[in-house]
Every structure is written in C-alpha cells, then in structure tokens.
C-alpha cells in the first residue's frame, strides 16, 4: 500500500501538456479579472449590499479593491506568459487572491470560480512552466506529477459532490428539477431555434426522469472512469459531450472550458510516441500531415514522410500506435481524432465505424 502511495507521489513525466493547462487557466483568470473590472465600473461591491464570509473589517476599501483587480489581471498575464521565475508564483497568488475576494462577498460565489482557484493552487505546484513559456527552454521538461494528479482528484471530487448531491435529492432523481428547468427556459430554447416538438418531447416526466438519471450516472461514472486506464478515453469523450451540452443549454461562465482544460491533465505524460507517416509524393498525404501537425496540440504524433516503397497498396497515411501496431484509412483517422482536441468530439463514432475495418491493418508493412 505504502509502495503504491510512494510510486504515485514520486511519479514523473513529460510536462508538455501542463503548459497548455497553465495557459488555459491563465486565460480564465484573465477573464475573471476583466469581469471584476467591468463590475467595478458599475459599482464597488462594498458600497452596496454584500455578504462577507470574512469579518467586514477585512473587506478591502474601494481603492484597495481596484488595485487587487488590477493585480488579478497582471498576475493572469504572468501565468499565460509562463516565465520560469514568475508563472507558478503568479498562479498561486492568483488563486489566493481570488479566494480572498470570494470570501469578501458570498453573493459573488459561483462553483466555477471556486473550482478555478482550486485548480490554480494545485497547478502552481506542478512543473507547468516547462512548456509554452517565455524565456530560455528548461534543461528538461520531465518533472513530478503529484500536483497534476491532485488536480485530477479535484475534478473527481467535483463530479462526486455534484452527482452525489443530485443522487440524494428525490426531486433530482425523479427528474422534477430538470422538468421545471425545461419548462422555465423552454421558451428561450424555442426562440434560439430548438423545434417546439423537441421541447414538447423533453418536457415529458418520463423523459426528464430518464435524463436526470443519465446526468447523475454520468457525473458519478466520470469520477471513476477518468481514473481508470481502460475507460479513460471513453470517459473523456463522454464528459466532453456532457459539458458541451451543458454549455449550450445553461449559463455556467467558464466552467465548461475550465473542466475541458483539466481533461488535458489526463493525457499520458509523454510526447511524439505515436508515428504518423505520409506519402510526400501525393498532395493528399502532404495535406493530411500538415493538418495533423497543426491540430496536434498535445504533441501526440511524430509526423514524417516515408519513401514510396515503404508501404503497399498506395496508402496516403499510416499511423503507428503506442503499441507499435499500424493503422490506415478510417482506423488511422480515428486514431488522429483520439489524439487531437479539435477532432476528439467525433472520435467515438469514428472508432466504432473503424472497428468494422480491422482487416485492413494487415496490408501495411512498417
């Protein structure tokens, strides 16, 4: 048991993807700073009704608050820039400052803001400043992963808390909460282009009951599935669509983008392990290689041209998986979709279709 904990604590890996997460969190912190600045132009929260959790004496004056908002924006810029000496302290300071300001007014509390500061604190202890940064490159990108894994646990905790509270609430379990939300906001959905018959179908008690159970099961299973090596990719795909549907139907500030950014922490901490070879003598091969290089934000592929005699039957692109097995055609496309964030939404249907084309892999020699 202790050995397992020690292995978990001492695990190291390539920190390439952590830099991307740092930038995403920095942009969300920047947006939060700008929102606070806009609100301040309208009214300073301390001049009107507010509900501090800290003693009122600790609530900043208007001028001090203005300085803190400016500091929030500047710290976010430092986080995005990613300089080795300032990015992680700026991340930590952003989180602590944001938490302090949340404690100054309970009315400004939102789950997505609190989640952002929790992730920021944890990522500040991860080697997230070794990629996508200003300044000279580090001696190595490999670093400890324990803080990134704590951020993964934080995400699981959020799913358990959210799904668990719904599971314990009979109104949620029975679909009553969803039914009423659909009734309250249905007219807005119709105005936005949702067909009336779709809304009519969704506002049936049986349908909302089933959807509620699906939502609860999704949240609870995501908490487990993201931690499972075999179920992780499907959990990430399902979770992606779950959050995109929420984003399309509800106002959740930056919660969707925050959570999807944290999903990047579940990427295996290595780079260029998969190979993508293409036929450079054909325009389609060159285009495919260029597209993959452009979309490969997580550096999953080593993209290289092959000699024309290396492949039989005129394949344009061959992908060699992590385990060394090659894939062509639809299976190669599914593998690319699996590894590139912008194409990931279509990964599961592509992989399903590709599963019917298994025989084609045997035609390739690598």
């Amino acid at each position, binding site marked *: 048991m202790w050995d397992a904990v020690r292995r978990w604590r001492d695990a190291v890996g390539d920190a390439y993807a952590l830099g991307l997460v740092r930038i995403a969190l920095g942009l969300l912190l920047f947006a939060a700073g700008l929102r606070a600045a806009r609100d301040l132009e309208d009214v300073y929260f301390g001049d*009107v009704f507010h509900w501090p959790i800290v003693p009122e004496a600790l609530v900043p004056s208007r001028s001090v608050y203005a300085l803190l908002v400016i500091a929030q924006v500047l710290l976010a810029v430092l986080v995005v820039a990613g300089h080795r000496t300032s990015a992680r302290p700026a991340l930590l300071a952003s989180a602590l400052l944001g938490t302090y300001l949340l404690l100054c007014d309970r009315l400004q509390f939102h*789950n997505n803001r*609190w989640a952002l500061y929790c992730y920021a604190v944890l990522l500040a202890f991860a080697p997230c400043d070794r990629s996508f940064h200003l300044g000279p490159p580090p001696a190595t990108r490999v670093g400890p992963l324990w803080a990134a894994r704590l951020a993964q646990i*934080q995400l699981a905790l959020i799913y*358990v808390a959210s799904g668990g509270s*719904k599971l314990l*609430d009979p109104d949620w379990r029975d679909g009553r*909460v969803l039914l*009423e939300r659909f009734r309250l906001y249905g007219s807005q959905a119709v105005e936005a282009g949702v067909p009336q018959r779709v809304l009519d179908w969704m506002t049936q008690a049986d349908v909302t009951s089933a959807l509620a159970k699906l939502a609860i099961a999704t949240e609870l299973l995501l908490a487990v599935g993201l931690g499972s090596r075999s179920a992780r990719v499907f959990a990430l795909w399902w979770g992606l669509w779950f959050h995109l549907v929420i984003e399309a139907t*509800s106002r959740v500030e930056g919660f969707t983008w925050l959570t999807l950014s944290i999903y990047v922490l579940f990427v295996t901490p290595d780079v260029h392990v998969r190979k993508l070879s293409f036929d450079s003598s054909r325009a389609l091969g060159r285009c495919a290689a260029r597209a993959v290089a452009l979309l490969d934000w997580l550096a999953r592929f080593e993209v290289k041209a092959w000699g024309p005699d290396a492949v039989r039957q005129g394949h344009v692109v061959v992908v060699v998986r992590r385990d060394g097995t090659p894939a062509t055609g639809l299976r190669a496309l599914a593998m690319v979709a699996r590894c590139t964030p912008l194409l990931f939404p279509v990964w599961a249907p592509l992989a399903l279709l590709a599963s019917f084309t298994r025989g084609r892999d045997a035609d390739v020699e690598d």
Partner: protein
Amino acid sequence: MVGQAALVLTAGARPDGAFAFRMFPEASTMEIHLWREVDGRWIPAREGEWSAHDGSGQLRHFSWRDRVRDPILASIDTRVFASYGADAQLARLGRALDDVADHLPEDGETVRLRAEVVVSRNGREPTATTLESHPRRRGP
C-alpha cells in the same frame, strides 16, 4: 483535499451550499414583495420604491435597488429563478433586509422592512414565506 471533502460533506449546514459544488441544485422560483412598517402599519413598497419624510420633514425617494444590486434580490414584484436554490436566496434576502434597513439614514418614517416571498420549489404549488429586517436604529 481533506478540507475540500469536509466542505462538501458539510454543505447542508450552509444555506447556499457554498464551496460544495452542488451544480444546478434546484429549479425553484421566487417572487419578492417588499413592505415597510410605518406607525404600526405595513405599507407596500411597490417595485421596491417608496417615498418618506426625513428628519427635517422633507419628502425623499428611496429605492431597494440603490443598495441591492444582485439581479435576483433586486427583482421586486417579479417572479425570478432562484439560483442555487430557494433557501440560498432566502438567506441572502434576510441579510439584504437588515442591510437596507441599516442604510436608510434619511428615511425618518420606516421602522423596519418586510419581504413576503412566494416560493415555488421545483415547480410545486407556491408557498408564502415572510422575512423581516431588524428594527432600524434611528438617531435621536
């Protein structure tokens, strides 16, 4: 992480369940009607607006929204969605009543404020709840 778990497990002890990641906890609505006590009588403050004389006898205008800017609590005589649940908004409203009562130095008439709130929890039949501010501390 232990602290986080504690915050999640103790969410029920906080009316708004803050720091516990309870997403979309309810689909409740509420409609606030504001009243003020003057000379032992309760007078409606329609849409959160009223006029009252100050200490020197001059008539002045007051608005609930001068002090309460939260979009839910600032909506008087209008049905609104109760974000984070009805209990969260009722707890905030109770605080807001006290806060507004404490910030009416030029209102020489109002003794205290009352909110009659019609709450519909997750689409159920509406029920009425009444909240009152503490009596105002007026100068000599």
